């Protein structure tokens, strides 16, 4: 019953102005290039005031880990989904801990209080 309430909330009002980044626990797999590992993440943007999201990979101490994605600054229209491929060098796979997406606020936005959202998935 509780799950039904959650799903109703998520699928009705939940997308009014939401940011979603899945899966929660991505797994790195060898890519078609030797020594490079990859995973796919999905970003859903239901925040009307936000059009850009940055991607970041971090270790457990929140230090940046080098990575390549397509691209690292994403333009995602309102109510649009985007699949992001993340590529990491084999030597960085052990220390990479989190893959995060963060909303980017344009400098032209002059709202009195702005909310920046960041969701981080943990690499398993």
């Amino acid at each position, binding site marked *: 019953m509780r799950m039904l309430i*959650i799903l109703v909330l998520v699928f009705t009002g939940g997308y009014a102005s939401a940011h*979603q980044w899945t899966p929660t626990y991505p797994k790195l797999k060898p890519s078609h290039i030797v020594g490079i590992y990859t995973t796919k993440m999905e970003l859903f943007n239901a925040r009307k005031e936000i059009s850009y999201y940055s991607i970041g990979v971090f270790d457990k101490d929140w230090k940046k880990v080098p990575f390549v994605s397509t691209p690292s600054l994403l333009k995602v229209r309102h109510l649009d989904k985007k699949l992001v491929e993340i590529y990491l060098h084999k030597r960085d796979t052990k220390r990479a801990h989190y893959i995060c997406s963060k909303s980017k606020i344009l400098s032209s936005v*002059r709202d009195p*209080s702005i909310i920046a959202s960041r969701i981080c998935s943990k690499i398993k």
Partner: protein
Amino acid sequence: MKNKLIILATIMAAPVLATATTPISGTVASKCIVTTDTDGVYGNPSATKLTTVSSEGGVLPIIRYDIITANAYNARISTPISFTSSPSLAGDVVNWTGSTVANQMSDAGMSVFNTNKVVYNNTTEFPLSIAGSVWFDISSEATYGYNKAFPAGSYSAVVTAECIAQ
């Protein structure tokens, strides 16, 4: 005759039975959804203070977290410690205070979020140990120097809402 009728009825009912057992499959995956429920507004009850507290003319920013699976994420909310845009404030320092409270929740048990929260610097971290939806009220207050009036102009600040996988 009776046996033939039973066989015939069984054959005719077979397609109906087949359609009745068509499966519907679905997956409920672990995820965290961050939703901006209410954008905040700084009220200016006196020349020396900007605050989001509603009794002082402000509007509290409210952020909703939807958690599909318990114990998969931590919510981390940081209140502002600087303005992203403002008139020149070079004359003195801005003093910031802020707090975050889980106010509305889809499950009464979520009141433990407030009990188990950890506060450090300008950040409050809540272990999201129960699945459901929870609304966080964020208050932010800024004063300028010692009883100094804020210069006229528009002010903006950013609240950061994070969802970190455990």
